[in-house]
């Protein structure tokens, strides 16, 4: 029964209706048991949901991101230009496996390009999730 609650990812109304139906069934649960299940689901719902979603993720997942901005001073040039450079470290991992760390370098133009692309993604997502 708990399997069907999790699989359907029931919200509180659905859960109440479901549990009440269960108590009325023959050989079903008592109202005390229903109360305990309801309490458990309320507090653990998000965790369980996340865990179930992870079970269907087989690719590497972005786990963490660290960065710093350095100032690159170019020697051996007549004008000593100080250009900032960003160093980004991304942690990519799969369930139960050791993470891979990706170290990348960005100049200002590349950071700007990246931000533009991320905004495009954001726009695309909001148009998807907006209820018409």
């Amino acid at each position, binding site marked *: 029964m708990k399997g069907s609650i999790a699989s359907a990812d029931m919200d509180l109304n659905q859960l109440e209706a479901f549990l009440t139906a269960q108590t009325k069934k023959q050989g079903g649960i008592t109202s005390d048991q229903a109360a305990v299940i309801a309490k458990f689901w309320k507090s653990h719902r998000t965790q369980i949901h996340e865990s*179930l979603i992870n079970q269907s993720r087989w690719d590497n997942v972005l786990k963490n991101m660290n960065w710093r901005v350095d100032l690159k001073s170019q020697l051996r040039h007549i004008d*000593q230009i100080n250009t*900032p450079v960003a160093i980004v470290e991304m942690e990519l991992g799969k369930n139960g496996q050791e993470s891979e760390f*990706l170290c990348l370098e960005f100049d200002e133009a590349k950071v700007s390009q990246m931000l533009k692309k991320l905004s495009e993604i954001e726009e695309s997502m909001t148009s998807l999730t907006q209820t018409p």
Partner: protein
Amino acid sequence: MARGVQDVGKETFRRLLKVTVNALEGKDCRESVRLIAESANLSEEQLAFLISGMYTLLREALRLPLSTFKQEVFKEDLKELRIPEDFIGDFSSVVFGNRRPTSEGTTLIQRSRLPSIQDFRWRVDVAISTSSLARALQPSILMMMKLSDGTAHRFEVPVAKFQELRYNVALILKEMNDLEKRSILKIQD
């Protein structure tokens, strides 16, 4: 290398030096090395010693900025290494003369850089149903990055992490802009 170079004739030495300079500029020298190996009377081991020795010597010498590194000091050092007088002149002209490898091509610069993103593609997927969730309806972002070192990385980004990523990138851009605006102490040599 010093011991080996004493046995080498001037002609061979000059060819080896040319190959080393080409290598420092990042050019492919396998063909030239093969030709030298065939024509000169050198074993593979001797050739390896000589080339790696010359390469290391020149690479270290080229690292030092010209304003503090003097030709006489360099020549003295080479004498101490017991390199023949003739060859010292040739080494010196590479480091100080107009045969100095151009810095754009030098592998010195290429090696001190981390890879950067060359191509970045993305896709927003919505998982409708999975084996563990009957009703998932979870959007997720798939990213594919091709880096300058030739590797490609594909990974998934959950929505919450995506927002974090976007926030961090915006913050990086802001930091970079702030850095440029401030008057910074220039590193003088």
